[in-house]
């Protein structure tokens, strides 16, 4: 930490980014868990999510108290966490646009640079340097931001199909909106798996997202090929 910046890679996250990140992380996990319990009450596909993986309390308790398998509590979780998600998302996007963080760190990105970095990553030859986002990361962050927007919109369409009627028809009707909402959830789960796996590989990024700053000496870097 005492070394000057030019001798080390530094990752910094503004307080607004960290608050927004953890708000979204928390609310997305609650929404996935409770959403799975809600899904189970009327599955779209030929499978159910195991109850232990869902959020909504003990099924036997719920049956005794609510006369239903915890769907009431799952829905209550879902419609409480949605406000936290909206808040986190607006803060993240607002800060990203307003501070220039998005343009500075997530752009430029091109199909070519994505392909180059993707192939390098697949061969485990992509260097990670703190504070710099490679093209694969950039595409992933834009993608998950778009996905959360899709989840908010399809979610509103399911929540209020009458009051926001034109919105539901964009998704091909009420059942279409449910399908989009489910598929979007699956993609977000995919993102989370990759995201968390990479954080485990480079734990300093976790420190940066908690404390706001992490660094590593330049010497740790094997090549200078990543820009």
């Amino acid at each position, binding site marked *: 930490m005492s070394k000057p910046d030019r001798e080390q890679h530094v990752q910094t996250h503004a307080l607004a980014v960290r608050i927004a990140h953890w*708000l979204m992380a*928390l*609310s997305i*996990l*609650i929404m996935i868990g409770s959403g799975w319990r*809600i*899904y189970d*009450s*009327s599955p*779209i596909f030929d499978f159910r999510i195991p109850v232990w993986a869902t*959020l*909504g*309390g*003990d099924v036997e*308790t*719920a049956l005794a*108290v*609510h*006369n*239903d398998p*915890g*769907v*009431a*509590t799952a*829905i*209550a*979780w879902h*419609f*409480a*966490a949605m*406000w*936290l998600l909206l*808040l986190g998302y607006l803060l993240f996007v607002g800060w990203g646009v307003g501070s220039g963080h998005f343009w500075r760190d997530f752009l430029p990105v091109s199909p070519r640079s994505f392909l180059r970095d993707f192939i390098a990553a697949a061969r485990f030859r992509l260097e990670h340097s703190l504070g710099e986002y490679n093209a694969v990361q950039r595409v992933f962050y834009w993608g998950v931001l778009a996905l959360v927007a899709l989840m908010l919109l399809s979610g509103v369409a399911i*929540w*209020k*199909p*009458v*009051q926001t*009627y034109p919105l539901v028809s964009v998704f091909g009707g*009420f*059942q279409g909106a*449910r399908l989009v909402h489910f598929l979007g959830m699956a993609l977000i789960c995919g993102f989370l798996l990759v995201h968390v796996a990479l954080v485990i590989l480079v734990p300093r990024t976790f420190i940066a997202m908690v404390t706001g700053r992490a660094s590593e000496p330049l010497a740790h870097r094997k090549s200078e090929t990543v820009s």
Partner: protein
Amino acid sequence: MSVERRHLLRNGLSIGSLTLLTGCDFSDSNVVQRVLADFSRWNDRVQAALFSDNRLAPTFPAERAVKDFRYNAWYGPDRAPDLKPDDYRLMLSGLVADKRPWTVAQLYALPQVSQVTRHVCVEGWSMIGKWTGAPLKTFLERVGADTTAKYVGFECADGYYESMDMPTALHPQTIMAFYLSDEILPRKYGYPFKIRVPTKLGFKNPKFVTTIYVTNVRPRGFWTDRGYNWFSGI
């Protein structure tokens, strides 16, 4: 307002974090249930603000209406109340000028409208049906209900009870449905009538209604008492 919002946010965050960090499901604890109930009341207010008196639920061509509508209750259809037209009376109470009971014949003589709308269940399934009956607004006006009051409540022959906000009760598509698919409402679907309200979830559509009352004290609801959101608009 802002104090309430801050309060919601702080509690929501700490409860959510606790649940996730420990990997335990604290959903059934009293604290969690209380915080979730706070959010639910906040959502009631948001939904009341979103509701528009003149925004109609989408309607569909008659051929899209399902003939064999899904039966849904916590008891089997054979245990549904069997109300006889000769004995049945609709009772009125609360802020209503004319509390004389109504017979089935009197009810069915009211001016009627038809609607082909989507019934949306809180569980996620939905089904389009055709219902015909008298607008609840017409009925409330006939009996001299105080339509400046806040709520309308319903009590039912199967022990069910429900309630709704007055703006929804006066909505043109909120009807006392006497017919389903052009047939007199069959016993298992709630004879002699059910409240059909296409701007709310399915469980806000009570069947076998035996009492209608108008009040300024927010009435309870069968599923609301079991943790579901009260307003439950769609």
